[in-house]
């Protein structure tokens, strides 16, 4: 089990996170501004349209890879199934995760 756990912010009181480290989409890029491999892959694969769901999609995608659940398109779809995209960018999202997973493992 990885040390970190994904949580839905809409189901977490701020008080519940007291004393814990929290990473949000704003904390993924490096201090120099270089995008996280998953952020770059979302750009490269056109994995968004309106962008409303994108922070949650990217955080869930990073968790999906870190948990070791990005080994096939079917597995990616299953582990990303809690994140809905009304624009229907799913094809690009799956492609982005497949693109970023090996880069994240190397990093």
């Amino acid at each position, binding site marked *: 089990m990885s040390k970190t756990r994904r*949580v*839905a912010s809409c*189901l977490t*009181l701020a008080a519940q996170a007291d004393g814990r480290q929290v990473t949000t989409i704003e904390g993924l890029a490096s201090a120099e501004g270089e995008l996280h491999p998953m952020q770059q892959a979302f750009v490269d694969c056109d994995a968004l349209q309106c962008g409303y769901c994108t922070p949650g999609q990217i955080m869930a995608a990073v968790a999906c890879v870190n948990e070791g659940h990005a080994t096939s398109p079917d597995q990616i779809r299953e*582990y*990303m*199934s*809690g994140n809905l995209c009304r624009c229907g960018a799913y094809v690009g999202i799956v492609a982005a995760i497949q693109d970023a997973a090996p880069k994240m493992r190397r990093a």
Partner: protein
Amino acid sequence: MPPFTYQKAATAADAVSAIAAGGAGTRFLAGGTTLYDLMKLNVEVPSHIVDINSLSELKAFDTSGSNELVFGALARMSDVAADPRLIRDYHRAFESLWRAASQQLAQHGEPLRKSTPAHALRLLSGGEPFACNKRKPGKPAAPPRKASIAGHALRAGANPALPFIG
């Protein structure tokens, strides 16, 4: 959302005394997936919340026994569903957990043992009973229920008697 107070219980005994002392408006908080939803709809309006997520003894489960499996009330769905013995020898149980919630919720902390009061699902925000339109076997489909849709983004203001087109 009306204000409420929040307390993290350190031990099971703490949690029990807090709920006993807190009165009718006190609620336990485990995964929160039901409580917060209902709070946002004003169905649940707790005055005090007792967070029981620190009670690690309730998160444990043991699937090594030959005649019984033991699950703590706070065992997380995703943790139980990843148990090798459950997957190998109790595949139906594994599958039902796997299908019960998306990974987003199962990993968020959806506890195995949920306590959703039936009345909470049947009350509108004003406390008015919510007609159930579940179809009875052998009978035609029930008429569309009159649900409160005032808070819904797309259907607010629409005629609730019209069939929902999602």
